[in-house]
């Protein structure tokens, strides 16, 4: 290549480059012009919008409620919106559950706890185009105040809980706005598992729910579950108070592990360590020795068990009973089973709405029980299992699969989901269990089952200091560590028995749910410490 050619090529390049630069400049100029045009258009549109908005003061975002004023305004609850209120103009505070805009109309579904109602904003003499657009753009879950006229509807609105009315909105204000991106969608969170798979729609998995518990708890199902759980607690208390029991509070920070060394949480206690109570066992019994006769307590129980199952939590609420009896521990069993039956009846009679709500997402058979409660001896249970082909020893403890199978066999034979298994083998019970007077291989102890899963373990306790010492030695327990416990029986102790249930497990089994985390508001397990 000659020098001239190279030069020539260079010039051509330069020319080509300037052509490119020119084209680029042109494009940029065009872009800028378009942008300016657009901005100008928006500005005029906005002006127009402001000018034509006759409903400007009937909607908007309220300043944060900092208790600026005391408004004497009654807010009606969604669940109270019935045909009786037809034609009334009322104010409602609720969340935006869903919103759907269609031309000149916007349909909102407003939700409060378990109730939902349809609301309509339509362009007319009360609402402007801008107001309808404002409503359509509100984010889901935002809390709004709405002034509306309650209207009767001819066709039932199947998708809402309030099926016979709808709200015709006059004014709409936002009290608390929600961020647009929700960590989970509430419709997905209440969708039954099977339906999700069939229609290819999403359901929310448990970890996501638990990580965003605040939103998950807003679902109708969660609202129902925890309202029912509150009922269990209340019925437990009411029934026992009526039977003459006294409610006690026991310490949770204790100096020695009560059930057994392995499953206990240690906490630092000033210059030394202490433990979190695995059960109120020791203190219940001490109350009996202090002549309180019949006591119960409701409080947290801490078990440091590294069990990642559907029914174990590291912290749960224990409902515990202890009772002095006259001559036979069956007096106590009868008292406990009657309490359970009163709870089941109370739930069945007063919480049907909640039970039905939960069943919509988690279908299950209604809970069945007998009056008086079915009581089988351990030996009978073993015989039933053997008749079904299970091989097990006379003094062997029941494994979880065998417990479940026995539950099914009992259901099939007696038609009950709740029963007591009495006279467990002594070898598989704690050291403070009273042995059977007629057969040293067995004990005066019992378990109670709901839907084939254990909910209560109880027994007549050894109330004699000497026998207690023997039993403790037999189990290889360090007597020094339980000296205070044994001492409580030295100064006259009545014969007594008791047992404890887990609130979360009982709620789960009553409703036929399958994971105890569904019935624990902020569950704790080996892998979860928050929220």
């Amino acid at each position: 290549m000659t020098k001239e050619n190279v030069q020539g090529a260079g010039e051509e390049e330069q020319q080509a480059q300037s052509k490119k630069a020119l084209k680029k400049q042109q494009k940029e100029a065009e872009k800028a012009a378009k942008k300016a045009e657009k901005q100008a258009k928006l500005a005029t549109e906005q002006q127009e919008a402001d000018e034509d908005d006759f409903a400007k003061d009937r909607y908007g975002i309220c300043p944060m409620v900092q208790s600026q004023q005391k408004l004497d305004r009654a807010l009606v609850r969604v669940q109270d919106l019935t045909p009786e209120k037809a034609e009334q103009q009322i104010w409602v505070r609720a969340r935006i559950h869903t919103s759907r805009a269609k031309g000149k109309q916007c349909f909102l579904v407003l939700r409060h706890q378990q109730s939902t109602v349809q609301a309509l904003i339509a362009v007319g003499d009360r609402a402007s185009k801008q107001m309808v657009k404002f409503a359509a753009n509100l984010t889901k879950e935002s809390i709004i105040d709405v002034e509306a006229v309650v209207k009767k509807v001819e066709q039932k609105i199947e998708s809402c809980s309030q099926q016979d009315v709808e709200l015709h909105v006059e004014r709409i204000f936002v009290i608390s706005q929600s961020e647009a991106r929700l960590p989970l969608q509430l419709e997905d969170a209440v969708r039954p598992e099977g339906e999700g798979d069939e229609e290819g729609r999403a359901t929310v998995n448990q970890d996501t729910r638990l990580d965003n518990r605040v939103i998950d708890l807003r679902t109708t199902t969660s609202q129902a579950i925890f309202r029912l759980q509150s009922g269990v607690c209340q019925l437990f208390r009411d029934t026992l108070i009526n039977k003459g029991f006294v409610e006690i509070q026991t310490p949770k920070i204790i100096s020695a592990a009560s059930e057994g060394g392995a499953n206990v949480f240690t906490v630092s206690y000033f210059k030394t360590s202490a433990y979190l109570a695995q059960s109120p066992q020791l203190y219940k019994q001490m109350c009996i020795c202090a002549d309180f006769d019949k006591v119960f307590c409701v409080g947290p129980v801490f078990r440091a068990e590294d069990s990642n199952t559907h029914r174990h939590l590291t912290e749960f609420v224990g409902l515990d009973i202890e009772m002095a009896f006259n001559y036979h521990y069956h007096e106590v069993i009868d008292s406990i089973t009657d309490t359970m039956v009163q709870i089941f009846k109370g739930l069945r009679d007063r919480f049907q709405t909640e039970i039905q709500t939960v069943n919509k997402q988690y279908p299950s058979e209604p809970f069945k029980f007998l009056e008086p409660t079915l009581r089988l001896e351990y030996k009978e249970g073993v015989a039933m299992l053997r008749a079904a082909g299970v091989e097990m020893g006379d003094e062997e403890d029941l494994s979880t699969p065998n417990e479940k199978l026995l539950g099914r066999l009992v259901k099939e034979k007696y038609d009950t989901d709740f029963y007591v298994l009495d006279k467990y083998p002594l070898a598989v019970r704690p050291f403070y269990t009273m042995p059977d007077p007629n057969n040293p291989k067995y004990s005066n102890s019992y378990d109670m089952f709901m839907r084939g899963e254990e909910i209560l373990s109880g027994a007549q306790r050894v109330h004699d200091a000497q026998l207690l010492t023997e039993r403790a030695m037999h189990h290889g327990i360090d007597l020094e560590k339980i000296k205070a416990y044994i001492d409580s029986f030295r100064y006259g102790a009545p014969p007594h028995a008791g047992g404890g249930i887990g609130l979360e497990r009982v709620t789960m089994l009553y409703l036929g749910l399958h994971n105890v985390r569904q019935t624990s508001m902020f569950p704790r397990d080996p892998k979860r410490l928050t929220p």
Partner: protein
Amino acid sequence: MCRIGFRCIKMALRELSSLERFLGLKKPNKYSTQGGKKVPVLQNNNGPALIGLVTIASHLVHEAKRPELLGNSAEQRAIVQQWLEHRVTRLDNCSKEEVKVILKELNQYLEDKVYLAGNVFTLADILMYYGIHHIVVELAVQEKELYLNVTRWFDHIQHYPGIRNHLPPVVVLRNRVYPSSHH
């Protein structure tokens, strides 16, 4: 490996002696085994040796003059052969994963049949019962209810006079204990 093989030999030989007893054959035969898989062999005075469980079992049926146990029509005979094949090629020594498949297929097959060949009891039922026993005896109550037709057929065969012999009975409950929605 060796241990499993040994159990199989013992079982195969016990099966054959059970079969002899059922068929009412007075003189028990003496069997040997061959090969790595320890296949049973019957040395015959009249001709070549008979090799294999199915071959020997069929021979015993002819010896006992009970040809109906191999099927009454061409179609039935074919079905019986098919199940005898199934027993030694798919059922014997199947892996854990295959067990579920085998049970599911058998359950579907038996939905509208009393016996494997339809309405008649044949050698197919006997050898399939012997071959599947060790699986069914381990099933939980819920699984036995899941494979309802297999359990029904199995219970029927194990109660057939003269069949069970060397095998322990498997408990089958009269009523369903798990609601069908459980599955």
